[in-house]
């Protein structure tokens, strides 16, 4: 087996975000790291929308990001700390729209190691140096400068190591133009490692240490080191330094040390200031629980600065410092607003706040005010003795605030994110859909959602109106060439034409000069101010003064099809003749003296738009009934001569020539594509050579079951093609690459561009007798998401074999369920406490739920109707029970009646994994599956993490034991058990009498049930330990599984062993076989291995295209959806592997990670080709493309075609 890995939806989690002027323009941009991918986002200041400029895979794991700017420069660079053991400086080049690696300095081994820097990055605010640090000991400082040619230079590293010090955070201090200073939060473990009494550990001090880079001596010294709060976790830079022009200080310099419950201002030889972190005034708030700051941002404005700090509950605090010169007078903190918990906060100068959520969608907010004059209580260090430092080891009294809805911020935009995907299913549940949908359980806590993903572009409909009859075509047209918007909508019916004018309302008009008594074949705004209508009997040229020049068809003939552009008109007559017209300089339409006989009925015609500054386009494409397409010259030298010919597999139904930019073919200029739609629903796309008119590089795609119609439209000012069949597709250019995506919209019969004041970039279409005006808002999107909100973190879900419902279990640790909350409130009320009801009614999806101690759970079973996109029923679990697994089981003891079995546990602790008691809840389906009725609960001794219907009974993985239960009257009855598993069973799959058991730490085991002796025996396992996260059976002997570290692999059992086990009726043979490597007697063989880079949470074997091959689809925790496609032939394997090899040398990773070692992070990559790397071939410069193609003995087009075939054939994407 050889697999090809392709990412369909790249990870959408944001691990870090930085802001800066990366393109060097005046506008600020945001670079976000998706863990393994960098994306540049550009906020539109006017509309407040974020758009992606570029996104590229880095083939490495990004651990830290920092922006910096050389003094006096206007452009920011990005520094990346990764697991490559290298520091990389990236520059965004707006010309090529790509990240360019300016510097790459190696300092250590690859991998996210303890003492290899890469975890933390800190830059000097004046852009003179950067510090990169590991989690322990190692810190390196690089000096950044520019050379004579103003290029960025980087020095060799200077060490600032401190042995046996654990580093919590580092930050660059703002000291103006004095020597760069860095602060680090460190703990030394030497003493606690030596002291058996544990006293040294208890007294271990967390040190705030300053490292000074002496630019004169070119070395780093430890300048100052003082103990600070032992629970400090984060440092924030405080502005400082003097402005050169005046002697004023920008700020006091120093750092904010964010600790549990406190914020401390700290600087060398200065008074400390400490304020408490205000807590929510919530009746259920646990006063003993500490609060830490998880993300922070500092913002400098003219002459002022402030900080926004975010607590782990999502509350933003505004922190301000009152200072006189460089002396701090007061540190103040107040509640600002509540937004989702962020991994990074970015403030833009244009007044926006970007919140990169740690889980779920990301948000862009606009500042409405800065919380200056509101009634929020403010806490100042001056109101505490010695500025809060009187007794620095004991906490300050709690400060409180009342959380409320957004006041200072207003939502501007939202970026959809699937992160985290916890489970998924791939099924085709929608009516009239020929491709399956991906259902995912996403999100965390109260912001969780159940999402349906469909391949296609989202469409926004603005108008839908019923027409008197069924039109067969629609056009829109301007009146004059320089009109900004369209003036008329022309509808063609079987026996007439209707013209509507677009104004405040859309209404019928008569006096346009168009013939209304005949159907229309084409409409064109021609010349400067004339209109043209082609109808079966002739051509009407309507001049600006409403005079009409009419060209009539010779007697006995009609026009069958026509094509037009601004200067040229070609019509095909029923006698298989072509008539060519061209506009002369006086605005007269002149017929070319000869007519061209084609010899076969013409079915379709197309000319491209007239290129800018030219008289005409030189080529005409003619599709004839004899299954050919001919390219005919329109050049005055050789008018109507046939240049080239292409044979087809079916008669053509439409042709469309369009000049579109596709960087994989030509980086600078649009390529002329001839799109040919066939009557059997296939689309051919060929490239027309502009010099000799030959057709090359044909690609095919199946669009649907109806004959294809092609329409040239304009999308975001670029030409695009709408292809209509039984589905509507849009072919467009996005980020310089060609995309071909279906529209998620009703089937259209005909469509055209539509531009009016309210919808400048719209499309107009007809579906039956309904006229629809719509837009495609988000180009580049591949999967459309429809979400249903959930209450708690989803864990697993399953489908029902006969009805369409999904059954989903959800649960949250450290959250009290509704029964628990009620009980606690009762207690409080009885104790005579007054309860702030308003706080209890705060929406949980914004504010989260109050944190409860470990071991508290809120959990529920939910029934979802995915087609209607709604929750049908929700069954909350009481007694602090949480659901961990579920299965639909048909018990043969009850005549195969279906039951839902849910594995739950009460008072569960995550680490170490334990519970008071586990339960198997057996439910009966009521109301055709829309309800559940609890039959009974069966106690178990451990948490049942996996359950499965098995041969009319229930197989359950309860801790280390695999058991089979049968249904009883009051309980499930245990029939057989195997307790030989290593850690805990987390997944079960079955085929026949075989059960595949996934162990939490010890990979996949093959077990078999032997009914005659009632034995459950493990006969094969894996030779390497793996922390399994998802398993699926590829066939009877093969499993595909993933582990916690981001690997996917395929294991196969020797078929001989398989037969031998199946032929043994009692299992006595296996029982007496000798174990191998302290495990089962047989071992599976590793077939494929690949490091995805995201933690794979589910794998399915599915077919994504109608009639297509089966592929392995996986979902990743960070929101990845990818597929593994099996290769069909040895030639493909050889070809693509060689291409991958070349790509590895040509396309170095952006973070400097070696591609082969990244994909073989833990185990060498085996029999899997990285399709994401291969697909970057399209972005390579032309010379490199042809060099690689030459090595492969192919043309560039053939390589690109092969890559497209692999993608389209397997996924349809």
């Amino acid at each position, binding site marked *: 087996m050889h697999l090809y890995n392709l990412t369909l939806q790249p990870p959408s*989690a944001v*691990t870090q975000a930085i802001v800066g002027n990366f393109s060097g323009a005046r506008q600020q941009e945001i670079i976000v790291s998706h*863990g393994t991918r960098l994306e540049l986002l550009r906020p539109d200041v006017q509309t407040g929308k974020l758009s992606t400029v570029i996104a590229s895979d880095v083939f490495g*794991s*990004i*651990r830290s990001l920092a922006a910096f700017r050389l003094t006096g420069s206007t452009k920011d660079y990005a520094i990346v700390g990764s*697991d490559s053991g290298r520091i990389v400086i990236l520059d965004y080049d707006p010309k090529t729209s790509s990240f360019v690696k300016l510097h790459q300095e190696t300092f250590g081994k690859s991998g*996210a*190691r*303890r*003492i290899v820097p890469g*975890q933390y990055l800190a830059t000097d605010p004046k852009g003179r140096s950067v510090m990169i640090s590991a*989690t*322990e*000991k190692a810190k390196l400082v690089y000096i950044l400068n520019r050379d004579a040619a103003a290029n960025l230079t980087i020095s060799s590293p200077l060490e600032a190591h401190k*042995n*046996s010090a*654990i580093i*919590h955070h580092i930050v660059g201090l703002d000291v103006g133009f004095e020597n760069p200073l860095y602060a680090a939060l460190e*703990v030394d*473990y030497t003493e*606690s*490692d*030596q*002291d*058996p*009494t*544990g006293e040294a*550990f208890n007294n*271990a001090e967390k040190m705030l240490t300053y490292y000074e880079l002496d630019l004169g001596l070119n070395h780093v010294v430890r300048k100052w080191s003082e103990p600070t709060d032992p*629970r400090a*976790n984060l440092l924030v830079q405080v502005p400082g330094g003097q402005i050169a022009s005046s002697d004023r200080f920008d700020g006091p310099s120093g750092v904010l040390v964010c600790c549990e419950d406190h914020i401390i201002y700290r600087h060398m030889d200065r008074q400390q200031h400490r304020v408490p972190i205000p807590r929510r005034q919530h009746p259920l708030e646990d006063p003993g629980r500490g609060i*830490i*700051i*998880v*993300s922070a941002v500092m913002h400098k404005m003219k002459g002022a600065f402030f900080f926004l700090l975010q607590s*782990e509950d999502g509350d933003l605090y505004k922190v301000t410092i009152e200072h006189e010169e460089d002396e701090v007078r007061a540190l103040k903190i107040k509640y600002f607003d509540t937004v989702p*918990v962020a*991994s990074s906060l970015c403030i833009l100068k244009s007044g926006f706040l970007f919140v990169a959520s*740690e*889980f779920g969608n990301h948000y862009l907010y606009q500042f409405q005010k800065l919380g200056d004059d509101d009634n929020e209580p403010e806490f100042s260090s001056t109101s505490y003795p010695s500025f809060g430092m009187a007794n620095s080891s004991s906490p300050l009294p709690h400060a409180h605030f009342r959380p409320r809805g957004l006041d200072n911020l207003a939502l501007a935009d939202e970026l959809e994110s699937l*992160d*985290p995907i*916890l489970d998924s299913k791939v099924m085709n549940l929608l009516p009239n859909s020929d491709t399956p949908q991906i259902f995912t359980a996403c999100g*965390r806590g109260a912001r969780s959602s159940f999402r349906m993903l469909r391949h296609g572009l989202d469409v926004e409909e603005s108008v839908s109106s019923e027409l008197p009859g069924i039109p067969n075509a629609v056009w829109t047209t301007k009146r004059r060439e320089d009109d900004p918007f369209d003036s008329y909508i022309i509808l063609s019916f079987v026996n007439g034409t209707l013209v509507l004018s677009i104004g405040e309302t859309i209404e019928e008009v008569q006096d346009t000069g168009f013939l209304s008594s005949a159907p229309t074949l084409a409409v064109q705004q021609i010349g400067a101010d004339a209109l043209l209508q082609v109808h079966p009997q002739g051509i009407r040229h309507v001049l600006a003064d409403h005079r009409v020049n009419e060209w009539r068809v010779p007697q006995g003939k009609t026009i069958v099809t026509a094509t037009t552009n601004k200067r040229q008109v070609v019509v095909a007559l029923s006698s298989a003749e072509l008539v060519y017209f061209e506009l002369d300089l006086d605005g007269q339409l002149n017929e070319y003296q000869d007519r061209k006989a084609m010899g076969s009925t013409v079915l379709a015609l197309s000319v491209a738009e007239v290129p800018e500054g030219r008289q005409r386009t030189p080529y005409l494409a003619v599709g004839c009934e004899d299954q050919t397409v001919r390219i005919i010259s329109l050049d005055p030298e050789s008018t109507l001569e046939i240049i080239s010919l292409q044979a087809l597999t079916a008669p053509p139904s439409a042709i469309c020539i369009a000049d579109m930019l596709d960087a994989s073919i030509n980086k600078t200029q649009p390529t002329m594509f001839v799109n040919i739609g066939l009557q059997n629903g296939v689309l051919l796309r060929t490239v027309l050579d502009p010099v000799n008119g030959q057709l090359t590089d044909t690609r095919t795609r199946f669009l649907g079951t109806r004959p294809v119609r092609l329409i040239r439209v304009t999308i975001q000012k670029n030409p695009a093609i709408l292809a209509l069949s039984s589905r509507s597709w849009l072919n467009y250019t996005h980020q310089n690459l060609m995309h071909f995506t279906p529209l998620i919209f009703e089937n259209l019969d005909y469509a055209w561009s539509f531009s009016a004041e309210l919808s400048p970039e719209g499309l107009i279409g007809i579906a039956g007798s309904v006229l629809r005006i719509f837009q495609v808002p988000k180009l580049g999107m591949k999967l459309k998401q429809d979400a249903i909100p959930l209450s708690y*973190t989803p864990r697993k879900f399953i489908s029902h074999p006969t009805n369409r419902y999904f059954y989903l279990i959800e649960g*949250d*640790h*450290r*959250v009290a369920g509704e029964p628990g909350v009620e009980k606690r409130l009762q207690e409080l009320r009885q104790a005579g406490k007054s309860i702030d009801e308003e706080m209890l009614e705060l929406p949980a999806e914004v504010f989260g739920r109050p944190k409860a101690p*470990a071991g508290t759970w809120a959990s529920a079973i939910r029934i979802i109707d995915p087609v209607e996109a709604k929750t049908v029923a929700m069954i909350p679990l009481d007694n602090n029970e949480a659901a961990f697994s579920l299965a639909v089981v048909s018990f043969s003891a009850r005549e195969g009646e279906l039951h839902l079995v849910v594995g739950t546990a009460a008072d569960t602790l*995550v680490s170490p994994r334990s519970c008071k008691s586990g339960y198997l809840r057996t439910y009966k389906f009521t109301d055709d599956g829309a309800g559940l009725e609890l039959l009974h609960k069966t106690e178990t001794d451990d948490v049942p993490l996996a359950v499965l219907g098995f041969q009319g009974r229930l197989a359950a993985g309860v801790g280390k034991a695999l058991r089979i239960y049968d249904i009883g009257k009051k309980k499930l009855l245990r029939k057989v058990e195997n307790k030989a598993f290593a850690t805990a069973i987390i997944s079960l799959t079955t085929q026949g009498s075989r059960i595949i058991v996934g162990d939490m730490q010890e990979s996949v085991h093959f077990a078999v049930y032997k009914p005659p002796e009632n034995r459950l025996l493990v006969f094969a396992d894996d030779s390497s330990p793996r922390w399994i996260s998802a398993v699926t059976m590829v066939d009877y002997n093969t499993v595909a599984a993933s582990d*916690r*570290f981001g690997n996917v692999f395929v294991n196969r059992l020797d078929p001989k062993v398989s037969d031998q086990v199946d032929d043994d009726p009692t299992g006595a043979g296996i029982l007496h076989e000798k174990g191998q490597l302290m495990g089962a007697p047989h071992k599976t063989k590793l077939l494929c291995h690949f490091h995805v*880079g*995201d*933690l794979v949470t589910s794998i399915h074997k599915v077919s994504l295209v109608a009639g297509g091959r089966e592929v392995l689809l996986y979902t*990743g*925790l*960070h929101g990845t959806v990818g597929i593994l496609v099996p290769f069909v032939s040895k030639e493909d394997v050889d070809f693509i592997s060689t291409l991958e090899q070349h790509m590895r040398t040509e396309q170095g990773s952006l973070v400097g990670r070696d591609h082969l070692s990244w994909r073989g992070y833990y185990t060498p990559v085996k029999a899997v080709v990285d399709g994401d790397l291969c697909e970057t071939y399209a972005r390579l410069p032309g010379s490199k493309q042809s060099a690689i193609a030459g090595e492969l003995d192919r043309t560039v087009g053939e390589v690109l075609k092969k890559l497209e075939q692999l993608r389209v054939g397997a996924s349809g994407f």
Partner: protein
Amino acid sequence: MSSELRYTANTQLEHLHARYTGTGHADLTKYDWVTHQHRDTLSSIVGHPTLTSYLAIADGESIGRVRFEMTERMLQPCGPPPRKDED
């Protein structure tokens, strides 16, 4: 092994140990070994964004909290060292 060789080998080894924290040697105690392992694991969790997310979801805490607690735990992941026998 000649005494000279042993001498150079030892200094090299010491140098390596000073330079590469976590490198083992023949006289490593079980405690040191397991502490090193835990510190390596904890820093690896902190260094891999997917693992911190995974733990944060399982435990119902924020990623920032998980990262902080993991780094805190690196100070003494396996409890205090065993008492040395006084012989």
